[in-house]
């Protein structure tokens, strides 16, 4: 995990891709790796990696963002420095737009991505109704692979209900995440949970593989 030059975080929109990508970038940077994060969301102009620009920059993460992120230009465009990830020494984490629509942009660079070396992870959130059924989630995986012309290496189970998420919510999503791994033949790499649930989760499910993360969503109230 995370030993290739390019790490791609993809999945259904609203499943928590940006949260995972930003947490991962911050984590790797804290460990001393040279990291870039690429906001490649060409679908939705809201809730972008750019919201965390300040925090990421303070950790030494190089942020590659669309020029007009968070402005009133409602056609998100590719960041001009995007292609630098194929020549840079840094590890690049790509935060892709939602669904197979968002993954289309990867398809255009599939050759470069494959040549540079990549890992791609599917973010699963059981509480997003469109992919709650694992068959629908699997279909989404196939659709993303098709439009990105790339293959998934594993699944990150990010099942959550936002701030209200309880230990129960996390635990009851585990069987679905495992089933998705079984159906798709891709390993369940990890289950993510907010840091405040850490103590409870490691006591109730000591055998599960958790990564504890921060909620980096823009807070307005």
């Amino acid at each position, binding site marked *: 995990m995370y030993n290739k030059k390019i790490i791609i975080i993809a999945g259904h929109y*609203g499943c928590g891709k940006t949260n995972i990508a930003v947490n991962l970038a911050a984590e790797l940077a804290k460990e001393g790796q040279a990291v870039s994060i690429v906001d490649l969301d060409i679908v*939705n*102009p*809201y*809730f972008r990696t750019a919201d965390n620009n300040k925090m990421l920059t303070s950790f030494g993460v190089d942020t590659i963002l669309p020029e007009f992120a968070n402005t*009133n230009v*409602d056609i998100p465009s590719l960041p001009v420095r995007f292609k630098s990830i194929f020549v840079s020494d840094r590890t690049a984490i790509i935060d892709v737009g939602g669904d197979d629509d968002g993954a289309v942009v990867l398809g255009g660079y599939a050759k470069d991505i494959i040549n540079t070396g990549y890992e791609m992870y599917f973010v699963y*959130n059981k*509480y*997003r*109704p*469109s992919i*709650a059924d694992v068959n629908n989630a699997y279909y989404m995986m196939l659709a993303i692979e098709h439009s990105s012309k790339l293959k998934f290496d594993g699944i990150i189970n990010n099942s*959550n*209900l*936002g701030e*209200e998420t*309880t230990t*129960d*919510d996390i635990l*009851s999503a585990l069987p679905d995440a495992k089933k998705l791994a079984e159906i798709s033949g891709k390993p369940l790499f990890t289950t993510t949970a907010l840091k405040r649930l850490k103590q409870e989760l490691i006591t109730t499910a000591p055998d599960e593989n958790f990564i504890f993360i921060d909620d980096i969503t823009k807070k*307005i*109230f």
Partner: protein
Amino acid sequence: MSRKVLMKGNEAVAEAAIRAGCKLFFGYPITPQTDLSEYMAKQMPNRGGLSLQAESEIAAINMVLGASASGARVMTSSSSPGISLKGEGISYIVGSDLPCVIVNVQRGGPGLGGIQPAQSDYFQATKALGHGDMHLIVLAPANIQEMAILTGEAFDLADIYRTPVMILADGALGQMMEPVDFAAKPVRVLPEKTWVCNGHQNKRPMNIVNSLYIQPEELEQKNIERFERYKKIEETEVKYEEYLTDDAEIVVVAYGITARIARTAVNLARAEGIKAGLHRPITLYPFPKKRLNKLADKVDIFLSVELNMGQMIDDIKLAIECKKPVKHFGRTGGVMPVPEEILDNIRRLAK
């Protein structure tokens, strides 16, 4: 296990509409509302309904008129500039006494404006959505759970009062995600739709859906009848929520997403010993006039917080008959105020 799901506001409105029996959706894409149309387009074919992307907002609202006349539960959605285009059709729907649900996920204006959240269509929604003597019921959700519940309510209110009902949201509510429980909707008794144009088969007199009246007296009578319904709406359908108003000396009045920011500001003010409270109108028409008027007897000053240059402030002044001062604080253009900015205003007025 939770029966809640995690949804965007736009998705929650669409899902709630389908669950409320909405069979027809006519829309036209516009940011920040497009996820709603997209959800409808994906879901409707599998759930016994139809979602159609019209050639324009004007076409969409007129399709709503036709569908409603046939008795279907029908919805359209757009964002500010698109709602302006629907104005004529909305007036015709009101004039024809037809129920429907219209969603406005507001963005900054005027003109093309921007794509970030705003509340600058308050006047339009509550005063002037179309020509003629008319109102719409206007509901202002403040969280994703309410986006869902009020959408279901909107369909019921529309059928009960034979009027369009607007969900007045904004770009933030449309785009943000929160847990939703769709089972929480209250159940209402609905009247039979005896006025529907669905073929009389020689078994009943024909129904005509129309907004043109040749005789002035007949048109006047229609308007009087409609305003009797508005009176009933004003008497029975007012909804609001209050927070710490019991002993409040300064009351912040805010609706929708702004009310949530204001609530944090009220907490910050209380921590400093300022007796602040929050009044949140849930129905913007009917506006909670009576309650505000009563509050004005014991409150020293009101602060209207809106994502506009000052629109609801006028309704507050009218409601309290200018018994106490009412001040405005707003940000526009898609800029969201932070709680501290509202707190600064509360502090200044509390002195």
